[in-house]
């Protein structure tokens, strides 16, 4: 029974459950309704950006620019919608135009990354590292380091009404899952990740599929930016700047391989949930900052080791 659980695809989910139950007696308010809402509000934007990263990792690529894309989309949306200094301040179309522009920024960044990787043959790490640097600088230059407040209530509701944010994130998750698990395109992504040369020989349009994966990653980053920006009521050129490793860590903990060819959206959901649970519980425990940082690193390492051990057992 234990072995079956250990070898299950849902190992990370079981880890979440065990972790949650084990800490309830020691962590005041951990299982309270308001805390569960807090955990959900925290993980939704991270989950959406992680979805796109999962698709890119499955083809054996990487996108380091997703968090910079979030920042750029955040300030572009803010500049359009803000009642303080927005280009469409007070206009009825400010919110739909702002949302469309944020998604478009994401798509454009995906196009740039996809073009650099598939057409210019620049290694994905270098291509997305440079776009990350460029876009971070662009977002700061664009706003001169200023944060943009005064966002319309209709937009802010997208991040602050939990049912609405949950619906958006759930829709994105279902879409990513459907694309990956139920479409030919999804199977092509796995094939490219396993062996891109073999995929090419098999007639898969490798370059076009890889390009589309980067565009989708950009689109999800744009959508995530909407949740981040609405949740914090601010267009921020530093939005999500320090979240890249959290997101990548969650995807890998969820079972997606950094070498490509392996990963599932449900695994990413569990990975993000696990990280959010750890973060939240450590806050509630009242440990000091230095302990929290070390414990968080240790817990994530423990989860990664368990997953590696599980994979080894599965192969043997």
């Amino acid at each position, binding site marked *: 029974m234990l072995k079956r659980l250990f070898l299950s695809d849902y190992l990370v989910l079981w880890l979440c459950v065990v972790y949650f139950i084990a800490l309830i007696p020691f962590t005041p308010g951990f299982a309270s309704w308001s805390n569960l809402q807090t955990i959900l509000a925290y993980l939704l934007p991270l989950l959406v950006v992680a979805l796109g990263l999962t698709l890119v990792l499955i083809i054996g690529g990487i996108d380091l620019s997703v968090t910079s894309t979030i920042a750029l989309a955040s300030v572009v949306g803010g500049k359009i919608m803000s009642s303080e200094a927005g280009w469409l301040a007070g206009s009825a179309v400010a919110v739909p135009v702002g949302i469309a522009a944020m998604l478009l920024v994401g798509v454009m960044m995906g196009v740039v990354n996809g073009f650099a990787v598939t057409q210019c043959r620049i290694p994905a790490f270098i291509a997305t590292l440079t776009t990350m640097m460029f876009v971070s600088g662009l977002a700061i230059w664009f706003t001169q380091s200023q944060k943009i407040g005064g966002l319309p209530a209709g937009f802010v509701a997208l991040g602050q009404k939990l049912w609405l944010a949950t619906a958006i994130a759930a829709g994105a998750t279902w879409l990513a899952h459907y694309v990956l698990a139920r479409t030919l395109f999804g199977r092509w992504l796995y094939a490219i990740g396993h062996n891109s040369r073999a995929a090419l020989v098999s007639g898969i349009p490798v370059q076009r599929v890889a390009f589309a994966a980067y565009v989708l990653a950009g689109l999800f980053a744009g959508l995530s930016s909407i949740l981040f920006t609405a949740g914090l009521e*601010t267009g921020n050129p530093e939005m999500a700047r320090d979240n890249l490793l959290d997101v990548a860590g969650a995807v890998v903990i969820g079972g997606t391989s950094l070498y490509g060819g392996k990963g599932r959206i449900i695994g990413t959901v569990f990975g993000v949930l696990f990280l959010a649970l750890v973060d939240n519980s450590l806050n509630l425990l009242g440990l000091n900052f230095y302990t929290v940082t070390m414990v968080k690193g240790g817990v994530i390492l423990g989860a990664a080791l368990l997953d590696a051990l599980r994979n080894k057992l599965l192969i043997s």
Partner: protein
Amino acid sequence: MAAVLAALCLVGCGKKAENPSGDQSKQLTIGVAFETLQTEYWVAGFEAIKAELKKRNLNVVEAIADGDANRQLQQIRTFVTRKVDGIVLVPKDSKTCIPAIKAANEANIPIVLFNRPAAESPGVKSTAVVADNRKLSRETVEFMIEQARKTGKKHKAMLIMGDLGDINAIGRKDGFYDAVKGQESVVEVVAEVPSEWNQEKARAGVVNALQASPDISFIFSSSDFLFPSVVAALKSANKYHKMGDPGHVVLGGFDGDATAYQMLVDGYLDATGVQDVYFEAEQSVQALLDSLAKKEVPAVILDPGFVIHQGNLAEKKSRMWGANVGKK
């Protein structure tokens, strides 16, 4: 893994029992949330607040957001879940903290912003304890001008600015110009270096300014943490000399960190405006307690700070947080 966490939790829970009051039911708990602990100033502020809470026999729960506004919002909501009695917050910035303040307001938990005020927002209530950046900078630069006047010559001046998206940096810049206005016979401003609170940018800017105007002899840095960059640039231009030396550049700063303290002790720094971290910590905790006692608390409490220089170093150093860094 969960067992290890549970054990750690027991250690954490054990701390409460050590509280000298012996009466846990009456003890208030204060959440202290800082955006970062990456500079000496924030560490000193964090320790000062915790010491103040301990002195008043209050429990403390802490959270550091590591520069992540979304995490900071979650941490404040977590404090609400824990039903803390008050919150001291160093926000990521003046705008992204608004939802966090709203969360505290909705739970009727008083919240004090330490050293960084929030932007105006309808219906959002908080108290900010902040340094009077403009006044303290003006007083520091006025002292520097008096030192410059004593040399009997006219000085060319450089201002090193912070991130102009930061209201504190703007206050310090304005204070500098308040002081030099009308003092053109002593000080002529020839260079403004935008540092964006980045040491590398500050160093490159100071080097460029010294190349363009090699006779600059008066420098005000908007933060002491940029002094290593200033000193390196001055040394490479052979302009770093002690006070009293004919080649001495009149130097002033803001914050009162450990580097500035050492430069004062060594005789290189004329003056720095000290943010009185201990005053700010005391006022933050007092404001929370006053709020809980339903007393009227102002929206902004100003820390007047003080100018420290060679003449009052011995007298004032005990309240200069940089002089106490590393001491236990």
